[in-house]
Every structure is written in structure tokens, then in C-alpha cells.
């Protein structure tokens, strides 16, 4: 996916050091990045911290963004690597995984049984699968874009998404039309 015109102009301005242009990019992409990180790591507070950190890294490395690359994929890629690092460090992974459902219940509005079933099913998925599902099924990334963002081979991403779909379909009691 190529960056749209406005993104392209803002990226150019940010490369030239415009903090204002970068602030506009943050405004335009914070929703997608935070939604992805919330689904990938399950802890909303941690996800928002990681999103903030991701934007700071992006601000420092914006010059490295290839002209034809999608900013959204690039940001999600940085965020995913930060998420991996955070969850793998200092035994945090086990604690976060275990706390996944309870944390979400405390920060979000009352949810339906279906919603809770989805959250539990997501929490049971391995992180790589959850990230692939979050990008392809929740954020409308193509498999190729998700592979680029996650730094994984296309085939691996396709298989993660297929397995994730099957698990979510089972949890929701909906027939998976592609199974």
C-alpha cells in the first residue's frame, strides 16, 4: 500500500524536521496503531505506552521510511517489535497473558458474552498469531502488508490468520466459511 498524498506530504515535512507535521501524522495514525497494540498485547495501558514509544522511535527514524512503504504498516511493525520485547522481558509475558482477560474487563465498558468469548479466544492465541489476526481480520491489512509489518514470511502469516480465524470461529460459534 502506498502512502496517500497527505501522508506523503506530512512525511516529507517531518523528515525536514517539522514537529507540526509529525503531530498530524500521530493524530492520523494513533487509532490504528493503538487498536493493533491493544489487541496484540491485551493490556491497554501497556499498549498505549508502547504506542507512544513507537511514535517516538518513528520520529527519530522517519528518514528511513521507504518512499513506497505504508506508514501504517511501518508503525505497526515498530510497535509489534516493541510489544514482543516488552512481553518477553523479565517474566512479563506470563503475567500479562494471565492478566489479559481481567485487565480488559477493568478498563472497558460492560461487554457481551460474545465479546468476552472473543477476548478469551484472542488471549489463548500465541502472540504472533494474535498479531496477524489483529492486522488482517480487525484492521483490514492484506496478508502481504501484515507480513511486511510483522517481519514474517507471507506463508507464515497466512497460516497464522487461518488458524486464528478457526479458533475465533469456534469461540463465537460461527461457521468459518473458509475452513
Amino acid at each position: 500500500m502506498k502512502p496517500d498524498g497527505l501522508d506523503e506530504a506530512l512525511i516529507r515535512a517531518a523528515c525536514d524536521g517539522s514537529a507540526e507535521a509529525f503531530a498530524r501524522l500521530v493524530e492520523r495514525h494513533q487509532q490504528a496503531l493503538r487498536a493493533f497494540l491493544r489487541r496484540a498485547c491485551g493490556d491497554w495501558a501497556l499498549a498505549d505506552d508502547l504506542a507512544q514509544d513507537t511514535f517516538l522511535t518513528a520520529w527519530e527514524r522517519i528518514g528511513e521510511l521507504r518512499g513506497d512503504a505504508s506508514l501504517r504498516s511501518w508503525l505497526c511493525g515498530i510497535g509489534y517489535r516493541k510489544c514482543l520485547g516488552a512481553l518477553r522481558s523479565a517474566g512479563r509475558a506470563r503475567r500479562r497473558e494471565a492478566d489479559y482477560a481481567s485487565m480488559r474487563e477493568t478498563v472497558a465498558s460492560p461487554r457481551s458474552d460474545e465479546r468476552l468469548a472473543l477476548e478469551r479466544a484472542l488471549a489463548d492465541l500465541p502472540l504472533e498469531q494474535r498479531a496477524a489476526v489483529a492486522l488482517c481480520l480487525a484492521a483490514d491489512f492484506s496478508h502481504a502488508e501484515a507480513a511486511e509489518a510483522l517481519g514474517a514470511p507471507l506463508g507464515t502469516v497466512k497460516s497464522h490468520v487461518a488458524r486464528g480465524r478457526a479458533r475465533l470461529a469456534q469461540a463465537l460459534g460461527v461457521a468459518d466459511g473458509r475452513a
Partner: protein
Amino acid sequence: MDALEARLKVLFAEDEPPARDAAFAARVAEAAARRRLRADLAWLALACGAAAAALFVFAPVLAPAVEVLARELAPVAAGLVLAAAATALVTGRFGLGLGLRS
């Protein structure tokens, strides 16, 4: 889009962060400014350290030259200070206070 994807779309949409979040954007801007300030301070400290080290190394060469220059330039410096004071007195706010200018 099949039934599962449609159902997932609805469920995922329930916990999307807001499309505009001024507080989050402000936090990012603040953190970026803090990081820039820290980088600027680090460069400044490095430059000051390098200048101090250079002065320390070249002090034996610089000290006699500075003494000679100070002796030679003292009258000129005194004259400049007096001229600046007179200018401030006549044209500046101090002059206004004394009623030298209207």
C-alpha cells in the same frame, strides 16, 4: 466478507480507540520535546566538556597571550563601556527615567 468476518468487525469495532485523542497526541508531543531537550543538553554538555578540555590543554600557550591582550585592550574596553553607558543614558529607558528624552 463472510459471516465470521462481519461478526468480528462488529466486535472489534467496540473497543477501537477514539479517532481523535488530544490527550494522547499531547503526551507524544511532550515526550518528543523532552527527548529533543535531553539530546540538545547532551550535545551542549559534550561541547562544553570539549571546550574546557581544549582550554586546559592549551592554557600554557594561551595564558601569556591573554595577559598581553588584556593589558593592550583594557583602555579600549573601558572606552567602549563608557560609550555604551552614555548611549543607554541618552537613548534608552534610563534616559527616559531621568527626563533626558521625551
